[in-house]
């Protein structure tokens, strides 16, 4: 079997689910004949026809709302946001209608909203967002954010098969930059389980999505240069969060660094800090620290973007600070 990219893995996952389950359909802007702005649905239109691969008007609220209606009726729609930044236009309907449907009315709403997220691609403030925190805060939604090609496939499958609404943040920086041989497996990555990507005893780094790779790189550097054993967790799912994996790692290493791409204030790292503090306070030998983006919109010039977003060197610096604490 050959290595496939993160994007191809996602594409395969979608394709296999469309194949497997005729309740699955895709809707979004330019997803049909054109195959999507990033070609994630390339060829689907020919293969599955215009009834299952639906080009929509530029109406994110209607895309999500219509997906919800169809989901109530037993379908399993996958709604593409051309860039995940535009999910903000569906914020009302996602947080108020979709997220609450089961709780308030016993309605089943198995849908997936997915789209290219994240920076490091010189996309400027409106094509680089990682808008995880706003939805992270909304009970009723699940959030997944694959970092590997295997999980790109495994989590889209899990998301589609899940009986609840799932937001799937695919990182566009990773689309064609990482590859993996999946051996053609039909593996589903369970939602809610973190992965210990690297073991170590001196410090835990919790991360997800694109910056996970930077954390891993930093861990390698720290091992090589400092002889430090860094345990790196790929969270994979933000909601539900795998508290147990984080806490048991922290109980082993006694030090925690959280790395996320999103801005700092109100970011997911705050919640992780609170949970670890609640569940493993006595095991902490140093303050929990975080490496995040600065609290600004994401600027466009490479030098500026690189400054605002967390880099491998930042993780190394922060980790050294914690190791020396």
């Amino acid at each position, binding site marked *: 079997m050959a290595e496939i990219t993160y994007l191809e893995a996602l594409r395969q996952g979608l394709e296999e689910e469309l194949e497997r389950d005729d309740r699955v*359909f895709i809707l979004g802007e330019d997803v049909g004949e054109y195959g999507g702005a990033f070609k994630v649905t390339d060829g689907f239109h020919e293969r599955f026809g215009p*009834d299952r691969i*639906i080009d*929509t*008007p530029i*109406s*994110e*609220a*209607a*895309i*999500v*709302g*219509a*997906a*919800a*209606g*169809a*989901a*109530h*009726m*037993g*379908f399993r*729609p996958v709604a593409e946001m051309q860039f995940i930044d535009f999910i903000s236009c569906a914020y*009302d*309907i996602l947080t*108020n*209608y979709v997220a*609450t449907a*089961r*709780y*308030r*009315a*016993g*309605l*089943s709403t198995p849908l997936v909203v997915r789209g290219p997220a994240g920076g490091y691609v010189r996309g400027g403030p409106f094509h680089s967002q990682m808008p995880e925190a706003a939805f992270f805060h909304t*009970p*009723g939604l*699940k959030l997944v954010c694959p970092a590997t090609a295997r999980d790109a496939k495994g989590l889209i499958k899990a998301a589609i098969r*899940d*009986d*609840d609404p799932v937001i799937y943040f695919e990182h566009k920086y990773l689309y064609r930059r990482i590859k993996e041989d999946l051996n053609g497996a039909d593996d589903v990555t369970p939602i*809610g389980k973190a992965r210990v990507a690297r073991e170590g005893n001196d410090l835990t780094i919790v991360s997800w999505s694109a910056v996970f790779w930077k954390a891993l790189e930093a861990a390698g550097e720290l091992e090589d240069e400092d002889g430090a054993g860094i345990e790196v967790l790929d969270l994979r799912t933000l909601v*539900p969060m795998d508290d147990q994996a984080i806490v048991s790692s922290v109980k082993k290493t006694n030090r925690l660094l959280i790395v996320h791409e999103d801005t700092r204030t109100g970011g997911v790292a705050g919640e992780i800090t609170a949970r670890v503090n*609640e569940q493993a306070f006595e095991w902490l030998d140093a303050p929990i620290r975080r490496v995040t983006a600065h609290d600004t919109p994401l600027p466009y010039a490479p030098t500026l973007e690189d400054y605002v977003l967390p880099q491998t060197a930042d993780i190394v610096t922060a980790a050294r600070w914690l190791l020396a604490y």
Partner: protein
Amino acid sequence: MKMGAGATVPVQIPGGLTEGRLLEIYYYLQLTRSLEERLVNLYRQSKVIGGLYRSLGQEGESVGSAYALEFGDILSPLIRNLGSMLVKGAKPVEVLRQYMAKANSPTAGREMNIHFNDLDLGYLGQISHLGDMVPVMAGIALSFKMRSEPRVGLVYVGDGATSTGAFHEGMNFAAVQKVPLVIIVEHNGYAYSTPTSKQTAVARLADKGRAYGVPSETVDGNHVLAVYATTKNAVDRARNGGGPTLIEAVTYRRKGHAEHDSQSYQSPDEIREWESRDPVERYVDLLQMSGWATPADITEIDARVANELDQAVAEAEEASTPAGATALGGVYADRTVDGGPLWFRSLDG
């Protein structure tokens, strides 16, 4: 056919309806109005939790439009479409329990008033955010189309709600996808205190449909059978693959936005004028004048409604309030994901 007292010649019943169905329509009109009156009583006794929203004067439009649907069709009511839900099979006792936030209400005390659903019977629960139900109903209608089922969706929108972005996106989506959806714009003169003239620069809300290439018409919302017939046409067209229709039902909100609203902005003259066009009274007159019902028929139905509501109120009142901890669960399909009570609730105070 029994002859109405005041009628001289029996008139042909319109729209393929039978006399029995005409009386059934009256039953729903009366049930809607009377149920709301019971709710007013309960509200005054502080037995209703939160606000009470009346549809006085609009019952004709709710009942007439919902009556044009078949079993299997799904509608999405708004706060003033109690009548539509009753037509679709919602039970008065459920409505009463909802308003009183009882444990055995359809949402077990989680949601308010008529925010509840039964998709088997054919009504979807609304959320408060106006406009949002339009795209959702477009999706439900899309699912009918995708499965080639001969089913139709119907969504209500207030004059005020036509100003929302969600209305626009949902309308346009439905039009482009040509889904079987009927949109009833309830032009009742006000959105809370805001008159239509401050809501939009068009006089006829049917004009809204033109922007979407959707056939649109205006109907007298206080004429039950006209609403029925117009909706029936639209429903038939939708069922036959003709896509959406927008119907502007012209009516009037004779009560305030909610019971607590003083209605200071509505002139007594205006209210009185519309009182004279009351849809229920007009319908009773029509039934009798056309020889489709006798005063006895009407009295009989009134008695039946009163009786049913006596029972429903008694049943609803005796139900218990939900236990606090039942607030948890049901956020996700898998209850283990929800999380149980927070830590401080599991400590001994």
